[in-house]
């Protein structure tokens, strides 16, 4: 009744081509941005204890995982190239950022976070090269080569972690506008703002790419590669571009994960195949080929165990942390199967259906 586009006429193609053509959607998006950019920080300042916990445990990792999911979604959801190596590409970003900021400590860390994405992007293109000759499941195995090889590099090349005895990245303190944003002294709020700005900006760019010529050529390659070629789309450049953009996003997410979430350091084990599986399950459940789905998937998969833990705590049942972890893994798997059966396009499609229902509410059709 309230959510409908009746009466909103568009007089230009530009208006019709907007990502959110409906007024109510734009209002909702504006309100949401206001909430995360102003509301959440205000809350954190008023109630530091709960607020900082909320930022550190929920908001920061959620945004970072959403970014990684967008990256993988560009490759797997939009271009149809199955990848099991996103964890390793996140690692490339993290290690690159670490090397860069230790070699050039005076350059603002945000710049290095973005540049580390470029490194990840180059590695991604390299491992994307076989995609010209290899298709489908075979390509998934090629990305496993990337996963295990890069993981091996993280452990075996001590130069990458500056010969630290622990074999881990140790995050140094870096400031932005005089405020500590990484390291032990950085407040969750400062880190949250950096993460939010980067994620919001990169989501906007991803949306632009997807709604233009490049996104269409990716989807064309995904849906029918032969016809795409006959439209004049060259497969290798299109696929490599998808690999490049995807690993760029994963790389930035990985760098932010270590520098703005863990904030003190991370072991190479963080970027194992389990991380790749984790991100992949986010986009399957959230919706392949959907940006908003990447956020939904990250929210569900990441926040679910926290909720499970909270319920266990609250009920007072003697459930160990390990049991909760096992339950989470099982539930993730069951949810993947459930969604594939009920709605192969994931939460994103359910969201669309809900909007459609809302549009005609209170009438059934």
């Amino acid at each position, binding site marked *: 009744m309230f959510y409908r586009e009746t009466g909103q006429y568009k007089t230009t193609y530009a208006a019709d081509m907007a990502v959110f053509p409906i007024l109510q959607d734009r209002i909702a998006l504006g309100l949401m941005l206001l909430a995360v950019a102003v509301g959440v920080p205000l809350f954190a300042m008023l109630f530091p204890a709960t607020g900082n916990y909320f930022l550190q445990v929920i908001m920061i990792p959620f945004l970072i995982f959403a970014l990684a999911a967008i990256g993988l979604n560009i490759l797997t959801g939009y271009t*149809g190239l*199955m990848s099991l190596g996103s964890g390793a590409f996140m690692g490339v970003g993290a290690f690159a950022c670490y090397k860069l900021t230790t070699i050039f400590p005076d350059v603002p860390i945000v710049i290095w976070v973005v540049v580390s994405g470029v490194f990840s992007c180059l590695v991604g293109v390299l491992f994307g090269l*076989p995609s010209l*000759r*290899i*298709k*489908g*499941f*075979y390509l*998934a*195995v*090629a990305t*496993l*080569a990337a996963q*295990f*090889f890069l*993981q*091996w590099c993280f*452990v*075996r090349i001590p130069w990458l972690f500056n010969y630290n005895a622990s074999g881990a990245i140790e995050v140094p303190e870096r400031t932005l506008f005089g405020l500590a944003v990484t390291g032990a002294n950085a407040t969750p709020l400062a880190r949250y703002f950096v993460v939010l700005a980067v994620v919001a900006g990169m989501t906007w760019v991803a949306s632009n790419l997807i709604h233009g010529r490049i996104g269409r050529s990716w989807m064309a390659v995904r849906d029918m590669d*032969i*016809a795409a070629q006959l439209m004049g789309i060259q497969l290798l450049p299109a696929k490599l571009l998808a690999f490049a953009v995807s690993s760029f996003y994963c790389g930035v997410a990985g760098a932010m994960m270590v520098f703005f979430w863990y904030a003190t350091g991370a072991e190479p084990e963080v970027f194992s*195949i389990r991380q790749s*599986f984790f991100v*992949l*399950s986010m986009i*399957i459940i959230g919706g392949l080929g959907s940006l908003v789905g990447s956020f939904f998937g990250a929210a569900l998969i990441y926040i679910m165990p926290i909720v499970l833990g909270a319920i266990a705590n609250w009920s007072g049942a003697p459930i160990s942390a*390990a*049991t909760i*972890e*096992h*339950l*989470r*893994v*099982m*539930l*993730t*798997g*069951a*949810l*993947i*199967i459930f969604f*594939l*059966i009920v709605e*192969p396009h994931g939460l994103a499609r359910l969201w669309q259906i809900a909007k459609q229902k809302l549009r005609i509410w209170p009438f059934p059709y």
Partner: protein
Amino acid sequence: MDILYKIFIDPFMQMGAAPDLLVQALWEGLVGGVLYALIALGFVLIFKASGVFNFAQGIMMVFAALTLVGLYEWMARHGVPAPAAIALVLTIGVMYVLAVSIEKFVLRPLVNQPDIILFMATFGLTFVLVGLGELIFGGEPKQMITEQLWLPKGSIDMKILGGLVSLQKIDIAAAVIASAMVAGLAVFFQSTRIGRALRAVADDHQAALSVGISLNQIWVIVWFTAGIVALATGIMWGARSDVSFALEIIALKALPVLILGGFTSIPGAIVGGLIIGVGEKLGEFYWGPLLGGGIESWLAYFIALAFLLFRPQGLFGEKIIERI
């Protein structure tokens, strides 16, 4: 020049200088290869009969081994007579129940969906089995029962080429059991009514349905068979290391094997397994030290990739002619 010498000359000098070590490495590579081939065999069975790329095959292996050991330990603790035999039978039963449930709750609702959806469903299945296995049997590694299952222990030491080559009896048993299973499956596929039905289903689901083959029944049989193969593989792998979900990483190595052999070829799975097993062992043994060791974790994938760039359809796959 030095580095070229180390890559291209030195390893072969070493092989010539100590042929007994070469034989030992080859043997270990072959045994590893047989076990990779067994995991790959489970993939091939399911792919042939249902077109499903079963990502969960590796986990099924771990799950089967874990169930076996878990049941054995429980029964041994409670003083049940002949626990190993009962545990084995019960585990086979569990694999059957698993096959039936997968058919009922995963495959049947997803019939006629695109391959990629089914692949992702087995990806979800992986999570379910990992979670379920750890929930019931705990996360810590377990010891595989070998003597209790009448598997030989110890090793045969042979003097050849001026050195001692030691062959583990369990490895010999693994090779024998693997060969027997492959032979049995080949006969099953080629000469039984069910085997023929399986091949029909693999070619075309709807055509198979139209001549009165029950897809559901076929799928249960195939997944059960793959479960048995997984159990056998799990016992063999478990005997070589502990039983835990770390085996999952080993199971993933069956994927490069599949790439080499092609998804539908049983001989391909075996040859691919042997190439990967031997290649990986020799690579680690002779070239690994150059790179600081541990290259076993990725070498298999690179070998497969290298082959793939020249034969995108695998060693035994037919040349793909694209049609529109």
